[in-house]
Structures are given as structure tokens and as C-alpha cells.
């Protein structure tokens, strides 16, 4: 297991390098620099600013400078948030997004897994139809529609929850529910497919024929085995939550990674775009490594291969 982690870390370095390089090239070949928006800056000042941030140097040299700093863990400075380094901004924003993401994922698991399991056990019956209808609704409603609806009902009409921002625990409720929607629907569909697969297995019939009640079979034999693939979708789930966080942090004005990423893209804040993208990539790599580890831990058959 230790060897696997080391192997993963070694593999992650070239992947991150590729992500950093591609993003670097992508943002640099775009016409327009970070100081374009300030229309009334005299050209001398823009030239000075460009010189200060090495933006006047040829792109290959900028690239090497960037990689050099990256190797020391320095993600650079923001061109828009004055006097703030990217490390600084991310240190503030990351915990916010992590909290929001973790709460939403937990919520999604608590809703999605039981919903999918019930649907599969009652396959073809009313419960299945309702559960699958709900999960199709869940993947069909855009995040901003859920967000707007929740804000309209609970914050504007009923006035029981805040409209946005990130201050008290009450501020977490609406964003977390909004963000949980699509992973919950995804998990429900996945759990259903997974349980249906297991239900057909011989040992399930054996358990039933030795007299175990239906619910005991479901809980002790089926669910336990069908949860393996569910645990291992953490990778795609992380991707879904990151995607969702762009919208959710935008509409609720939450100072997290997603919001900083979007404003950075709008402002052409090069280093901040690169920094946030790299953090997202690291998150995904960690999630996928965890999935591999979980596989080995949960399913002994997978261990033989190593």
C-alpha cells in the first residue's frame, strides 16, 4: 500500500507539469493582458507593471521563470488583488471550498445512496419509478436554477436564511443543498445500477433461500457489496463538486476557489488562473489515489495484481 502511494506521487508530478504547462500556454497566447481593463493607465505605467511581473520578457523565458518559482512552491502574485500572493488567496479560499464541498458530498451520500438502493430493491415498482424520476430531475436542473429557486423561496420570500456570503453556519445551508443536488442524483443512479448487478448474484439467492428476510439480505449482503463501486466514484464526484462550486460560489457570493477561478479568468489574472487550476488538479489526483487505495482495501481480489 505504501509503495502504491509513492508510485502515485511520482506519477502525479508529470501530470501536474503537463497541466501547468498547458494552462500556461493557454492563458499566455490569448490577446490581452491583465492590465488591459484599466483603460486610463498611461502606457509608461503599464510598461512598468509588465516589467515588474516579467510580462515583458519572451514567453519561453516567462515559462521557465514560472516553473522555477513553482518548484519552490511559490504560485506567484495576483495582478488584481493588490499585494496578495496567489498562495495567500488560495490559503483563504481553499478551506471555504473544502468545507462546502465536504458538507455537500456528505449530504449527497446520505440522500443518493438510500434512494438508489430503494429503487433497485423495488425494481419496476412505484418506489423505483419515483426514485428514478427524482434522480433524473436532479441531473436535469442546472445548478443556477436550484440556487435561484432556493434563494427566492427561503431568502427572499420566507426570509429564514441568508441570501449569500459565508459567515455563520446558517450561511452554509442553501449553498450546500444546491451543491448536493447533482452528486446525489448521480449517486442514486449509480447505486441503483450497482445493487441491481449484485441482486442477480447466486449468493444473494442463497441468502434468501436459507431464510434471511429481504431487508436483512439487502442490508447485510447486497448493500455492503454494492457500496464498493459507490466508494470508488469519489474521483468523478470530486469533479462534479468542483464544477458545481463554480456556479454555487458565484450565486451565493462565497469567497471560495470556484469564485476566485471565475474572477481570475475574467480578469486574465494569469498566476491566479494557473494556481487555482493546479489546486483543482491536485484535488482530483488525491481523490483518484484514494479511490485506488479504497479499492484495494475494500476488495481483496484487487490486491493480487500488485
Amino acid at each position, binding site marked *: 500500500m505504501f509503495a502504491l502511494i509513492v508510485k502515485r506521487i511520482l506519477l502525479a508530478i508529470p501530470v501536474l507539469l503537463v497541466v501547468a504547462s498547458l494552462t500556461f500556454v493557454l492563458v499566455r497566447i490569448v490577446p490581452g493582458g491583465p492590465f488591459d481593463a484599466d483603460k486610463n493607465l498611461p502606457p509608461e505605467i503599464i510598461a512598468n507593471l509588465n516589467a515588474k511581473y516579467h510580462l515583458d520578457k519572451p514567453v519561453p523565458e516567462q515559462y521557465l521563470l514560472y516553473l522555477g518559482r513553482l518548484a519552490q512552491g511559490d504560485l506567484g502574485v495576483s495582478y488584481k488583488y493588490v499585494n496578495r500572493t496567489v498562495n495567500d488567496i488560495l490559503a483563504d479560499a481553499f478551506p471555504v471550498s473544502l468545507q462546502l464541498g465536504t458538507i455537500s458530498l456528505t449530504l449527497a451520500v446520505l440522500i443518493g445512496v438510500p434512494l438508489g438502493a430503494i429503487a433497485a430493491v423495488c*425494481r419496476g415498482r412505484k418506489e423505483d419509478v419515483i426514485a428514478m424520476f427524482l434522480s433524473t430531475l436532479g441531473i436535469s436542473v442546472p445548478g443556477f436554477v436550484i440556487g435561484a429557486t432556493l434563494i427566492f423561496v427561503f431568502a427572499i420570500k420566507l426570509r429564514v436564511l441568508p441570501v449569500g456570503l459565508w459567515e455563520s453556519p446558517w450561511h452554509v445551508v442553501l449553498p450546500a443543498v444546491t451543491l448536493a443536488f447533482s452528486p446525489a442524483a448521480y449517486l442514486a443512479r449509480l447505486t441503483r445500477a450497482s445493487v441491481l448487478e449484485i441482486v442477480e448474484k447466486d449468493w444473494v439467492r442463497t441468502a434468501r433461500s436459507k431464510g434471511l428476510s429481504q431487508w436483512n439480505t439487502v442490508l447485510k449482503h447486497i448493500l455492503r457489496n454494492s457500496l464498493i463501486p459507490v466508494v470508488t466514484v469519489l474521483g468523478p464526484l470530486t469533479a462534479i463538486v468542483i464544477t458545481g462550486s463554480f456556479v454555487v460560489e458565484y450565486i451565493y457570493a462565497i469567497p471560495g476557489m470556484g469564485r476566485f477561478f*471565475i474572477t481570475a479568468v475574467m480578469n486574465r489574472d494569469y498566476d491566479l488562473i494557473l494556481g487555482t487550476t493546479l489546486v483543482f488538479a491536485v484535488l482530483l489526483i488525491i481523490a483518484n489515489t484514494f479511490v485506488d487505495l479504497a479499492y484495494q482495501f475494500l476488495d481483496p481480489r484487487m490486491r493480487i495484481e500488485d
Partner: protein
Amino acid sequence: MEIVEKAKMPVVAPLDQSVMARIRRIPTAYIALWVIALICVVALLSFMGFSLCQYSFDQTSSDFLAGPSGQHWMGTDELGRDLFSRIVYGARLSIAIGLTTAAVAFVIGTLYGALSGYLGGKVDTFMMRGVDIAYSLPDLLVMILIGVLLGRGTIGILIALGLVSWMGTARLVRAQFLQLKNEEFIEAARAQGQSGWNIVFKHLLPNALGPIIVALTFTVPSAILSESTLSFIGLGLSPPACSWGTLASDGWRSLRAHPHLIFFPSLFIFITVLSFNFLGDGLRDALDPRTRLGKKSR
């Protein structure tokens, strides 16, 4: 991961007339099919210049921010433009983006996946490794980054959507080909001395078409969702372009005072996406010989 793929990948069944008959027996899918047909016809008519509304989409009036009424079915926006006309007009862009993306995903994804699956071995490993890494990144993240380069026009969005959407199809086609190419009928075709081209396009592809069509049915709604989400957070299309996403984005700003401006565009995005998802689910069930429709399976 295996289960995820399986959930997306139906058992192979040839496409034939019975599919339509089977769809007809799944109420959600059948209704969805008609809803989609209706929306497409409206979009097409609007595209060809037949106006279904008494107002033009950019016709302003002094009736600012009116709520829904007999005169303006869905109310008007801050310039007094009729929202219903704008939604009908926006349908063409939203639907066109969804369908074009599916077409791009079909062409690129099928070619790439077919090549990878048919050749197999080292070429396959090499071709799929890159796709695997790119596929695990969040679509929206990749699209925003590509959008930085391509700008916020319709073409830019289409390229960004096309670039991220073919990978799912490629993986599916490859998996189908790997599974099919060891079947006896392919062996028979080989024994007859048929060319690789013939085997891929006349024997393998038609047999893999069912699952590909199911996957494409899910590509359309996800493209529509992505476009509207991008436009909503201000990184997609921007006015004067008019899609359901930009309309919802406009409406968002006046959520408090004029909720109808975001409600109606959202409703249309939702209905369209929901219909495509139901149709996709229905097609998958209709193409899966394991499900016996109309009978209880237990």
C-alpha cells in the same frame, strides 16, 4: 469505475423498427420524444423566419418589466422586449449548440474510439491514456480554460464544447469495438478477406450504433446545460447573443423584483434537458434486450 461504465453502456442490440415500438411503451420517453420534436420544430421554424409570436425578439416597447399577461405571455424584460419571443428565438441557439455538440462528439469520438478499439494493443493504450486523464478533469473547468483562448462567441463555445464532449463517446466506442471484434461474425468477415475499412464501417460500427446513439442522446442535454451554465456565470455567450443561458443570466440580476425573467428561461432549459434525459433512459431500456418492458422483471 466498472459499474459506472456498465450503467452507461447497454448490452448491444441492433437498431431496428422494434425500438420505436418499445419507446412507445415507456410513457416518460414517449412524451419526451414529442416534447423534443415540438421544441425542435419551433426552433427550426424560427430559424427559417416563420415567426410564431406577435413580437420580434429584439422589439422594444414602453411596457418595461411587465409580469406575464394576456398580451405578453411571459412578461417583458427591462427594455420592454417580449420574453416569450426571446425564449423562442433563444431556442434556436440552445438547441443548435446541443445538436452540433452531439454531432461533433459522434464524428470525432467514433473515429477515435474505432481506431483505438480496432487496432488494440500499444496504440490503444497510448490513445486512451490521454483521453483518460482529460476525461477525469471537470468539463466546465476545461471549457472555461479553452474559452479563455477562443473568446466568448458562439463558435468559441461550440469548439470548447466539442473538444470536451467527444471523449466519452470515444471511450464507449472503443469498449464496444473491443468487445465486438472477437465475435464470430467479424472472424467470418476477416476470413472472407474483407478490408479493415469494411470491417470497421460495415460490420463493427452498425452493431455498436445502439449504445452510441444512447450516449449521444445524453450529450445533447449536457451540452445545453454547460452552455447555459457558462453563460450564466458570465464566461459563455454574452449579449446581444440570445440563448436560454444568457436570458437566465439576465434574469438572475432582477431575481428579487422580477422573478419571471429567470423563471421562464430556466423552465425551458429544464424541460428540454429533462426530455433528452428521459429519452436517453428510454432508448437505453428499449435497446437492452435484458429489460422486458411492460412486464415486471421480478
